[in-house]
């Protein structure tokens, strides 16, 4: 079996993963801002959006975007379609973990900022986010790991990622168990260290220490 061949697939996997994670974070900030909006309208729209995004399986999202809703843009590139599908879905999860991180900062911290008339920007950047960030990161990392695993689904729409390549090598006569075992190890090589990193960051957070 050709390992180099599998590594070609790894490139596709990482492309989908990093691309969709970046999209999810950008949209996640929008979702979190919407969740915390003063406007009931905005909050309702975000709530519906999150329900829709979460309620449809990732595979169905990918098929929808690739074959149906791509408007000619996404239909040409399975990788791009996978990035958009997984990015949209995970924006809901990442958005909620950003929101949860902000909510975990005690109310008194906000009140002290207000009482001292700190500009909002300063309050966020210097007081609130440094406390919220470790909490956001810990839960976001869990989603990032599940996102990595979900990139495998993109093989079904023909994205050139690891499962797709491994499946092809098997079709060409490679040993199925070995091929899939090897890519299984590659997934682990990414997800396990990231999981450890997340727990380490969470352990260092001020709020976690207080509790």
């Amino acid at each position, binding site marked *: 079996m050709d390992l180099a061949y599998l590594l070609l697939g790894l490139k596709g996997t990482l492309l989908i993963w990093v691309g969709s994670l970046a999209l999810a974070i950008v949209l996640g900030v929008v979702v979190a801002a919407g969740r915390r909006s003063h406007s009931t309208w905005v909050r309702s729209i975000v709530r519906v959006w999150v329900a829709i995004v979460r309620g449809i399986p990732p595979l169905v999202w990918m098929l929808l975007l690739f074959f149906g809703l791509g408007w000619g843009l996404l239909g040409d590139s399975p990788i791009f379609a996978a990035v958009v599908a997984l990015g949209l879905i995970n924006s809901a999860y990442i958005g909620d973990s950003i929101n949860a991180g902000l909510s975990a900062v005690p109310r008194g*911290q906000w*009140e002290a900022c207000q*009482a*001292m*008339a*700190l*500009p909002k920007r300063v309050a966020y950047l210097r*007081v609130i986010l440094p*406390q919220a960030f470790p909490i956001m990161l810990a839960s976001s990392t869990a989603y990032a790991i599940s996102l990595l695993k979900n990139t495998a689904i993109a093989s079904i729409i023909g994205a050139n990622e690891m499962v797709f390549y491994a499946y092809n090598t098997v079709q060409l006569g490679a040993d199925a168990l070995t091929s899939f075992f090897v890519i299984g190890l590659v997934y682990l090589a990414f997800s396990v260290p990231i999981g450890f990193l997340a727990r380490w960051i969470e352990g260092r957070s*001020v709020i976690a220490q207080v509790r």
Partner: protein
Amino acid sequence: MMKTPNSEPTEVLLAAQGIRKSYGHLEILRGIDLNLGTGEHVSVIGPSGSGKSTLIRCLNFLEMPDGGSIDFGGKRIWDENSPIKEADSRAHRTKVGMVFQSFNLFATHTALQNVSIAQVHTLGRSRKEADDRSRELLDQVGLSEHLDKHPGQLSGGQQQRVAIARALAMDPEIMLFDEPTSAIDPEMRVEVLRVMKDLANGGMTMISVTHEFNFARDAANRVLFLANGCIVEEGTPDEIFSAPKHERTQQFVNAVSGIV
């Protein structure tokens, strides 16, 4: 050292009239009048849920009152018909120092940084100027040894003294204390009370919500007894603690003093 109650008539710094506040159907404040002269120290006492904290939180708009009016420095800054603008409430807050029951020091900042942050970002002082002032204030509250410690490394009493220094760093015209010693071990309260008493004796205009009767007796010019969102009785510390007119006041004072 006792302050002479109602000594000379001073200029009125703060005049709150008819302050009302409800949460849903629950009326917390039912029309409170509170006037405070420059240099005066009023202690507010009363049972839990009587609205003491809500009252002083209304005075810097951490809670928005539903009704009444607030004058500060001779100027109407808020009334029920003219909601305050964000910029105006921020401007007002720079003149009002607030000390919270749970300290609310910024958890990721050292003691020094806690005292400096608003000087730099709200008042626009230079970092050096702010840090110098912070060191001076932290020294004044007896914490010059702890400048670089984070709140988690300080006792409750120490944290509260940092919080007082942080509020003083803004050079406020008035200080609000919201049960500043309630979350501190009894033994550790004395240092905080001493700092507050020094402030009061030094002429700082103060409102303190407190259950520390000895402190109020020593350091306050006037005491308000609040129950059920109304001022039941108002007078000098002697009048309230030694000869209260209302039965409700008598009851409360006895209970808190441990008289059975």
